C-alpha cells in the first residue's frame, strides 16, 4: 500500500509538472523563458538516456554527447545538403546512432569501471574530432547554418512557441518510455545487473546483451535530442558535443539522481537555469574593474559533481526527496524506483 501512496504522489507531481509546462509559453512572466525551456527539454532527453545507462544498469558512459552529436549532424547534413525530409533524416539519424551504439557496445561493455569510462571518453572525443575535421561534410569548426525547420505539410515549426510544444512532446514521451522500462521486466534485469552481475546471470539475465540494449536506447534518445537541437537552432557546430559537453550531461544526471527518471528533468533544469540565467548574473556581479569572472559555471559544475557525489550519491533530486520524506515519513519511503 506504501507503493500505492507513493505512486499517487508521483502522479500528482507529474500532473502539476504538466500543467506548469503547458502554462510556460502563455504566462507573460514565464514566456520570455520559452527558449530556455526548449533547451531544458532537449537536455532532459539526453540526460534520461544517461540515467538509464549509469543509474540503472550501473555502467559509466563519458561519451554520451557523441550520440547527441551524431543525431544532430545526420539531421543537419541530410536535411540541408541532401535535402532529405527532416523527419526522415531524424529517423535515419536515430537508426544510424542506434546501430553505431550496438556495434561498439559489445566490445566496449566487456570493459568495466575505469576502463569503460576511458573507452567511452575516448570514443566521444574521436567522434568530436571527426565533426571538427570532416569539414567538407560538417562545415568544420565553423559549423553549418541554414538547416530547415521541421514541418508537417504546411505547418512549419518556425516559432519558438511551436517548437516548445514539439520538443516537450518528444521529451515527455522519452521520459514515459524510460519510466515504463524501469518498472518492467527489463528494468528489473538492468537494476539486477547494477546490483550484482553474477547474481543477475544466475537468474537467467543475459548481462552483456542488456547492457548493450540500454546503451542503444540511450543513444537513440540522445540522437533524437540532437536532431531536435539542430532543427531548433537551424545551426550545428562541433563544440556542443565535445568532452566538456559529455561532462555537463553527467553533471545533469548526477544532480537529478542517476537512478531516477524524473530526476532527469530536475537535473537538466537546474544546470541550464544555473548556466543560462544565474551564473552570468553572478559573474557580472563578481566582475571587478580589472578582474573578470569567466569560469564560474565550470567551477560550480565541478563543485556540484564532487559535493553531490560525496554527500548525496543518490542525487540532489532524490536527496531532497528523502529530506522531505524525513519530515513526512509516510509519503516517500525507500523504494529506489521513482
Amino acid at each position, binding site marked *: 500500500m*506504501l*507503493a500505492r501512496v507513493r505512486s499517487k504522489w508521483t502522479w500528482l507531481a507529474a500532473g502539476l509538472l504538466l500543467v506548469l509546462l503547458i502554462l510556460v509559453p502563455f504566462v507573460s512572466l514565464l514566456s520570455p523563458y520559452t527558449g530556455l525551456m526548449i533547451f531544458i527539454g532537449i537536455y532532459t532527453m539526453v540526460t534520461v538516456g544517461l540515467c538509464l545507462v549509469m543509474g540503472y544498469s550501473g555502467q559509466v558512459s563519458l561519451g554520451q554527447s557523441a550520440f547527441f552529436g551524431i543525431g544532430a549532424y545526420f539531421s543537419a547534413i541530410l536535411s540541408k545538403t541532401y535535402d532529405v525530409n527532416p523527419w526522415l533524416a531524424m529517423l535515419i539519424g536515430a537508426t544510424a546512432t542506434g546501430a553505431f551504439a550496438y556495434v561498439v557496445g559489445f566490445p566496449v561493455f566487456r570493459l568495466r569501471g575505469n576502463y569503460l569510462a576511458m573507452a567511452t571518453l575516448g570514443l566521444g572525443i574521436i567522434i568530436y574530432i571527426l565533426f571538427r575535421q570532416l569539414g567538407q561534410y560538417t562545415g568544420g569548426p565553423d559549423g553549418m547554418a541554414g538547416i530547415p525547420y521541421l514541418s508537417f505539410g504546411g505547418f512549419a515549426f518556425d516559432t519558438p512557441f511551436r517548437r516548445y510544444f514539439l520538443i516537450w512532446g518528444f521529451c515527455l514521451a522519452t521520459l514515459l*518510455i524510460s519510466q*515504463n*522500462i524501469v518498472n*518492467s*521486466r*527489463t*528494468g*528489473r*534485469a538492468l*537494476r*539486477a545487473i*547494477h*546490483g*550484482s552481475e*553474477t*547474481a*543477475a*546471470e*544466475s*537468474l*537467467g*539475465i*543475459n*548481462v552483456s546483451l542488456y547492457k548493450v*540494449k540500454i546503451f542503444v*536506447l540511450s543513444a537513440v534518445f540522445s540522437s533524437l535530442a540532437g536532431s531536435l537541437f539542430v532543427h531548433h537552432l537551424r545551426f550545428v557546430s562541433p563544440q556542443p558535443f565535445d568532452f566538456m559537453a559529455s561532462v555537463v550531461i553527467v553533471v545533469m544526471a548526477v544532480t537529478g539522481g542517476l*537512478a531516477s527518471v524524473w530526476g532527469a528533468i530536475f537535473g537538466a533544469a537546474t544546470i541550464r537555469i544555473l548556466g543560462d540565467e544565474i551564473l552570468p548574473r553572478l559573474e557580472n556581479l563578481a566582475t571587478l574593474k580589472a578582474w573578470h569572472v569567466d569560469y564560474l559555471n565550470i567551477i560550480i559544475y565541478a563543485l556540484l559533481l564532487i559535493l553531490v557525489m560525496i554527500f548525496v550519491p543518490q542525487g540532489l533530486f532524490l536527496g531532497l526527496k528523502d529530506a522531505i520524506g524525513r519530515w513526512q515519513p509516510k509519503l516517500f519511503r*525507500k*523504494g*529506489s*524506483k521513482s
Partner: protein
Amino acid sequence: MSARTVLETRGLGRAFGGIIALENLDLILAEGKISAIIGPNGAGKTTLFNLIAGVYSASSGQVLFKGVPLNRTPAHKRATMGIARTFQHVLLFSNMTVLENVMAGQHPRSRYGFFEAALRLPKAHREEETISLKAKQYLNLVGLGMYADRNPLGLPLGQQKLLTIARAMATEPKLLLLDEPGAGLNALEKQGLSELIRRIRDMGITIILVEHDMDLVMGIAEWVIVLDSGQKIAEGTASQIQKNKRVIAAYLGDEEAIE
C-alpha cells in the same frame, strides 16, 4: 531407486593459475533428492557450484544437466534450463524492493521485452500480473510475504538468506544449489530452513547444498559428498559418511572441534 539423474559431472576439474581448486570429479545426482557437499574450507565446494552454474568454465571434464553437456553454455542459459542457485554472500539487489528481487527471479520464465515494456502493451500488463503474483507466492513460501515493499538490506541476515532462496525459486528450477544457507542462522531459523528445504524437495526439485553445519546436513541430506582439497574422498548416506574413516580423519576431526 530408479530416479533419473539430473546432474552428472565427468572428470570435472578447474585450476586457477597454478592452484588446482577441483580435480577429476565424477558425480551422479538423482532427481528429487537433497544432496549435501561438505568439506573443509578450500575443499572446492564453491568452485564446484560455480562450475555447475557456469560462473567459471571447466578446465577439464564436463558437466551434464539431464544428459546435456553444458561446457559451452553461459551462466544465464543454464539458469533458463533450470539450474538456480543462492550465494554464500547473499548478493541481494539493494536497489530493488524485496518483492522486486523475487520478481527479477521470474526473468527466465517471462517473455515480454523492451518494446512491449516501453509502450506498456497489454502483453506486458498480463505478464507483469502473473510475475508479481508468482513472486508473491514464492515470498510466502519462504514466509516473507509481509516485507514485500521493504528494502532487502533492511532485513536480518536470516531473512535475507530466505529471500535469496525465494529469488532462486522464482526461476522455477529443476536443480537448486544452496551455498551455505545455514551460515549465520540461529538454531530456530535453521529448524525452519530444514523444513523449507524439505518442502522444496517435495515440490520435485533436486537440491544440492554446501554447508558447514553438520547437524543441518545430517538432518536433511539424503546423499552426502565429501570433498577435500579438490577431490572427492567419499560419498554416501549421512550415516555411512559419519562412519567413514577418511572423512573423520580429513574433516570431522578438526572441523567439528571448532564448531
